[in-house]
């Protein structure tokens, strides 16, 4: 049998390598370091259509991520989608008339919410509501509109 010290050294190396690999997976591969929205505050925004926006989708301000989508639900009275935005506490001084639009990263990429600050004196607070919103662009509807405009035009020219 191999002597005790060798065994212990090898097992030590083995366990250390395993824990190191887990650490690599957690911090280098996973997003454990970047997920946290620190002491965020929640605001609400209503959209006609959220497209493929998901919980935990990014919220950006001038392209920089400042928060994540906390919840998406449907309002049974207005038939609108209610999106709860969790914004990092460091960005507390957003004007109350900030507008939110759902954009797509790349042509077919993931959807995210872009905030555009307005000019109001008051700031967004916990529980306040973003009034100016722009819904997601749904590709099928867009293509449909494009096609109908193509079909209509020649008909107009003949008349």
């Amino acid at each position, binding site marked *: 049998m191999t002597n005790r010290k060798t065994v212990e050294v090898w*097992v030590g190396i083995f366990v250390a390598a395993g824990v190191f*690999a887990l650490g690599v997976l957690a911090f280098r591969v996973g997003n454990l370091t970047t997920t946290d929205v620190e002491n965020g505050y929640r605001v609400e925004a209503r959209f006609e259509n959220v497209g493929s926006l998901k919980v935990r989708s990014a919220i950006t301000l001038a392209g920089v991520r400042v928060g994540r989508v906390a919840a998406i639900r449907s309002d049974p009275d207005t038939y609108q989608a209610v999106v709860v935005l969790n914004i990092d506490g460091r960005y507390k001084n957003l004007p109350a008339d900030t507008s939110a639009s759902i954009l797509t990263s790349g042509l077919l990429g993931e959807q995210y919410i872009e905030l555009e600050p307005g000019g109001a004196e008051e700031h967004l607070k916990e529980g306040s509501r973003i009034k100016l919103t722009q819904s997601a662009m749904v590709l099928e509807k867009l293509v449909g509109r494009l096609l109908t405009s193509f079909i209509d035009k020649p008909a107009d020219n003949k008349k």
Partner: protein
Amino acid sequence: MKLFQVTGAAVLNTIERLGRAALFLYEILGNSWTLARRFYLVIQQVFAVGVFTLPIVLVSGLFVGMVLGLQGYNTLVKFGSAQSLGLLVALSLLRELGPVVTALLFAGRAGSALTAEIGLMKATEQLAGMEMMAVNPVMRVIAPRFLAGVISMPLLAAMFSAIGILGGHLVGVGLLGVDSGAFWSQMQDGVDFREDVMNGVIKSVVFGVVVTWIAVFEGYDAVPNSEGVSRATNHTVVYSSLAVLGLDFIMTALMLGEV
């Protein structure tokens, strides 16, 4: 009539064996806490079970990662999204291939060795000898091996995934010219710690328990002669591979929550 008798006997036998295996697991767990005072026994087994399985796991992990890089690139490039190669490699390894392939290798390399060792101890009446000396063989022989297997499996699976991602990086970035920054950033963006990394760890712990349990039980329950030991070793590999693949489906279904 004979047919019914044969079927009935087979069913009863299977149920009886399952029951014995469950009681055996209970006995192992009951004896495990006494190992806190003699932890060196476990360390010795981690050396035998984990360290010796490491080379095969690392080499297979590297090659699986490299193959994923090649295959993934060829499919993704058709959709113009070769940048997502890192994400594809990382998710397939973390969620499925890491735990499952490691468990299969572990069953073949460590599980069969455990069964053969314990079966041979039984065949040569070493276990009976221990009982004669008032040493509980479950506590002295079985429990350390079981714990060592459960400890080693998640570590091995983590190393498999990590080196597999490295292999994918090697092929994707080094050979096929995917941008290194995009490879890592897409991966970090898409891989969630709790959803993907932790679920893989949970899977590998479950596989560790199941494979080691089957291995030690088959050894302990083997017919004590050379043929019995060889059959038990065979059973270990077959049963644990099947159990791993079946459980993987069930756990994936539960984790994705779509069934």
